[in-house]
C-alpha cells in the first residue's frame, strides 16, 4: 500500500507533497557501494575531490542495500554475478532506482560474448543508461541528473512500481 491511499485524493496537497518528496529524494539519493569493474573506478573518481558527487548529497555510499536508494551498476555483469545483482536489488527497499553505468552494464559493450549479460535490464529494471566506456565522472553525474529529472516527474502511485 502506498501513500496515496492513506492520503486519499487531496489534489493540491498531494502534488505539493510529491514535489517536496521528489526534491528530497533527488537531493539525498544514497547510492549503494557497489562496483563491478572499470566503471567502478570512474565512479570512485566521481566521488573523489575533482568531481565530488557529495555535492548532490551522494557521498553516503551505503554498504548495505537496505539503506540505499540507488544502485549504480558500474561495470560488466557476468552471468555468475547476475543472480547476486538481482538479489541485492531485491533487498533494497522501495523506492529504488538503477543506473546502468557504462556500455557493459547497458548492453554488454565490447564484450559481446558468453560470459557477460548483454545489458543489465535483463536482470533489473534500469532507469538511466549512461553511455561511455567508462563514462567520464561528469557523464555519470549527468546520468544522475537525468535520473533526478525522471524522479521529479514521479507520482506517488508510481512509487510502488507495480
Amino acid at each position: 500500500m502506498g501513500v496515496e491511499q492513506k492520503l486519499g485524493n487531496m489534489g493540491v496537497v498531494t502534488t505539493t507533497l510529491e514535489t517536496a518528496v521528489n526534491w528530497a529524494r533527488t537531493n539525498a539519493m544514497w547510492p549503494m557501494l557497489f562496483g563491478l569493474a572499470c566503471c567502478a573506478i570512474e565512479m570512485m573518481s566521481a566521488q573523489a575531490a575533482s568531481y565530488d558527487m557529495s555535492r548532490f548529497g551522494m557521498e553516503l555510499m551505503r554498504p548495505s542495500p537496505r539503506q540505499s536508494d540507488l544502485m549504480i551498476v558500474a561495470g560488466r555483469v557476468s552471468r555468475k554475478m547476475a543472480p547476486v545483482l538481482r538479489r541485492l536489488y531485491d533487498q533494497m527497499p522501495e523506492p529504488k532506482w538503477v543506473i546502468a553505468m557504462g556500455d557493459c552494464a547497458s548492453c554488454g559493450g565490447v564484450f559481446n560474448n558468453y560470459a557477460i549479460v548483454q545489458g543489465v535490464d535483463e536482470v533489473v529494471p534500469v532507469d538511466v543508461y549512461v553511455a561511455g566506456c567508462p563514462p567520464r565522472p561528469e557523464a555519470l553525474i549527468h546520468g544522475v541528473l537525468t535520473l533526478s529529472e525522471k524522479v521529479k516527474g514521479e507520482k506517488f502511485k508510481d512509487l510502488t512500481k507495480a
Partner: protein
Amino acid sequence: MDNKLEKIVQTLQEKFGATFEEFRGEAHVFVKPEQIVEALTFLRDQHEFALLSAMTAVDYWPQESPRFHVIYQLTSLTQNLSVQLRIPVNGSQLKVPTATGVFAVANWREREIMDMFGIEFEGHPDPRRILLPDDLDGHPLRKDFPLGYEEPQFTFNFEEIDVRKPYVKE
C-alpha cells in the same frame, strides 16, 4: 637461445625424450603427459626454476590427437631463464596429472584450465569450477564453444531483438 638454456633443454631431451622447438629465442619443450610432474620437479629442483609463471592450454579442435596442449611456463629467478613445457593431450583422454604437488600455484591455474577447457587434472585437491558459474554447460575456451555473440541493436532491428530479449519489466 641462451647457452645455459640450451643445456637444460638437452638434459630434458635426454631424460624425458622430449622434443623441442624454438621460436624467437623461446624454448618450447614437449614432454609426455605422464612425465610432466617429474619434469617439473626436475626443473624446479635441479635447475632452480622456482616460479611457474603461467600455465594454460590451447585447443586445436577439430584435430583430435592431440587436441589440446597444456603449457607450463617456467621461470628461474636465479638464472634469469625461461622455459616452456608443453604436453599434448588427446581429445579422447582428457586426463593430465596434477602439478599442485610441485607448484602450489598450479592449483588455481589447473582449476581454470579445467573450467575453460574441460581437461581433468587427476589428483587435484579442489576440482571445482573457478571462474564460471556452476550451472554453465561446456568449456568456453574450446574452439567448438560458440562465442555467444548477440547482434547489436540498431533502429532496423530494435524491436526484433527486444522481443527476443528476456527483459525484466517492473
